[in-house]
């Protein structure tokens, strides 16, 4: 309607019409940042849909993830005698992502969809996966309910839930004292992470001295940092990711606080720290994977090598997650000799993935969470390499711990997995 009005007002230049058109343009601009699809070259390829950010806060991770998936697809080349093709659309807010998911299914006829960095976006497309009966490999989101209260039969999650990441890093951060300040993104992932971590802290006799929610995509944290300092915390726990984390660390450093107040976060992508730079980077983080360290397996190392050869930078965790996600989907297609999602789901529920990490990995059949050893990593005191920022502090679960301690047992889980396919 707005546009119609503008079109009809052709006489002269009306300030009001320009304004209105401006507002309309901004809205469409924010809603969809022109996704593109790779055109099919070979006849009848097997298509896998990829939903990862091309714009906004998580755009950098999005590209790393896609690169990882592309390496997995290229390594396999073809399955069932057909070439593998990835179709990448934007993950840019729940509504856009849902529309793009429908486009992948209806127009592109993909056999499975993978990706997802934002938990909010994944939670929005999980019902679509259930309804359309299509495999959804959620590679990057961390909200606990994805494989908890809101779990679904067609959704599998590669990344670690907040339940696990908070438990892995809590003991290390608690060494600094038990008065904590929390700053977290005001959507599913950040809120769930705050609930998990503040729960652990309180159960251990600690105190939340301050807690603030920040909207995703906040650029200026100076006012938050003033509040943070005023609350005199022993440690700061962040639920920020992507460029939000970068912005926070840069501004934290400018205020002369780096190294003075210990920092940790719900998760950490290397790229966020690379763009903050060696001076601003600080903290101790839960990490699903790190490209250096003795814990890496031969398969993992070969992946690092081919990623570096192709892109000039090492892969970060998001690249590994999507590389593994594509690998898991293609393995399922190959082993079942089928592209029928219901068969793929049954296969994934019973398969063990060996060699990708130190220790066997599998998707738990009752909540579809990938069970795997993870890491706690600390930013080096003195960073000498452009990309090698982390020392591995510990591998979790540690001695005397079980994977159930880390990921939660079935009796604690709120997941009620549907039995029908």
């Amino acid at each position: 309607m707005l546009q119609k009005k503008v079109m009809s007002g052709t006489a002269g230049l009306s300030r009001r019409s320009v304004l209105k058109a401006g507002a309309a343009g901004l809205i469409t601009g924010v809603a969809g940042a022109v996704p593109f699809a790779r055109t099919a070259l070979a006849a009848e390829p097997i298509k896998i849909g990829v939903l990862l950010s091309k714009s906004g806060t998580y755009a950098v991770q999005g590209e790393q993830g896609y690169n990882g998936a592309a390496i997995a697809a290229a390594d396999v080349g073809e399955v069932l005698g057909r070439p593998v093709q990835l179709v990448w659309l934007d993950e840019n807010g729940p509504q856009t992502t849902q529309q793009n998911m429908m486009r992948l299914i209806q127009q592109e006829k993909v056999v499975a969809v993978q990706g997802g960095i934002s938990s909010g976006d994944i939670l929005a497309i999980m019902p679509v996966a259930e309804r359309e009966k299509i495999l959804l490999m959620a590679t990057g989101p961390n909200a606990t309910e994805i494989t908890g209260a809101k779990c679904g039969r067609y959704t599998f999650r590669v990344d670690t839930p907040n339940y696990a990441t908070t438990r892995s890093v809590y003991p290390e951060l608690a060494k600094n004292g038990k008065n904590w300040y929390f700053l977290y993104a005001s959507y599913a992932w950040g809120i769930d992470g705050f609930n998990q971590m503040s729960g652990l802290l309180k159960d251990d006799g600690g105190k939340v001295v301050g807690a603030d929610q920040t909207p995703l995509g906040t650029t200026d944290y100076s006012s938050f940092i003033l509040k943070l300092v005023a609350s005199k915390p022993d440690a700061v726990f962040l639920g920020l990711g992507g460029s939000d984390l970068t912005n926070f660390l840069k501004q934290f450093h400018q205020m002369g606080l780096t190294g003075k107040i210990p920092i940790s976060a719900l998760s950490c992508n290397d790229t966020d720290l690379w763009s903050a730079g060696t001076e601003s980077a600080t903290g101790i983080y839960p990490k699903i994977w790190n490209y250096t360290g003795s814990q890496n397996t031969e398969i993992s190392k070969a992946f690092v090598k081919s990623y570096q050869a192709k892109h000039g930078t090492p892969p970060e965790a998001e690249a590994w997650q999507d590389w593994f996600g594509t690998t898991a989907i293609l393995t399922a297609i190959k082993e079942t000799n089928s592209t029928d999602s219901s068969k793929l789901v049954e296969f994934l529920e019973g398969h063990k993935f060996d060699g990708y990490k130190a220790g066997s990995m599998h998707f738990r059949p009752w909540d579809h969470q990938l069970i795997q050893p993870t890491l706690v990593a600390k930013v080096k005191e003195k960073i000498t390499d452009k990309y090698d920022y982390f020392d591995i502090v510990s591998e979790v679960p540690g001695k005397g711990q079980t994977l159930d301690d880390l990921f939660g047992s079935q009796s604690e889980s709120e997941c009620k997995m549907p039995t029908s396919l």
Partner: protein
Amino acid sequence: MLDTMLIASQLMNGLVLGFLYVLIAVGMSIIFGMLGLVNFAHGAFFALGAYFALSLSPYLGFAGALVAAPLLVGLIGLIVERTLLRPLYDKEPLLGLVLTFGLALFIQELIRTIWGSMGHPFDTPSMFSGFLQMGPVFVTQYRLAVLVITIVILIAVWVFLEKTPYGRIVRAGSRDPDMVSMLGINLKRVFTFIFGLGCLLAGAAGVLAAPLWSVVPTMAEQAIMPAFVVVVIGGLGSLRGAVVAGLMVGIAVAMTIQFWSVASSSVMYVLMIIVLLLFPRGLFGERWERFE
């Protein structure tokens, strides 16, 4: 308990933040005021400023880059106006919008191609590292430097527009282009210059924002919305309005963070709605015959 020291500190911080918003918005405001064009590529020129500074500062230092990068962005602005925008002035106003919107996407992809999509570290220039604490007020030296540089830039722009003969032509041309042309003045060249100036200011804001924000191709998106809001609140085309609105937004954001942090990014839109309800032209928007 209300901590008055903290509130004073937040007020000061909001003021400094406000000046950053003013700087981002002022170029957009000038272009709209003179050309009647909402420049959607403003954020992209802002990002270009940051990236040029990234590439130039190893050779010229931060101070050198602060001069050279905006000039380069301004030069690109001149070329864009001359080749792409000029043919559109007497056509449907929507065309200019669509063109600058496309240009914004194009520049963002160009940045991705040249500098890669990954973020680049951009440290605070060493001469401004550190912070000042005077009583309750806690400001980093770099933010203080941004404040001072912004004020200098604003004074320079104001003097140019209000006190020089060329500025008088610009102002007259924006009010009544036909009459100015009839007086024998080449208004086309003036328009080109103004667009270049607006882009230059966007570039300068980008350079100054680089040590504060993530230097990523998508940084354009983070600049365009506050700029647009500030320009609308202040009254389109009003320099004074942009300054007042920028400071208002900065202080509103800081205060919201103090008392109701989750609303900190929506507060500027709420402010915009309230202002537009009370003053439909924005705070200092005047009635211009040409735009009615």
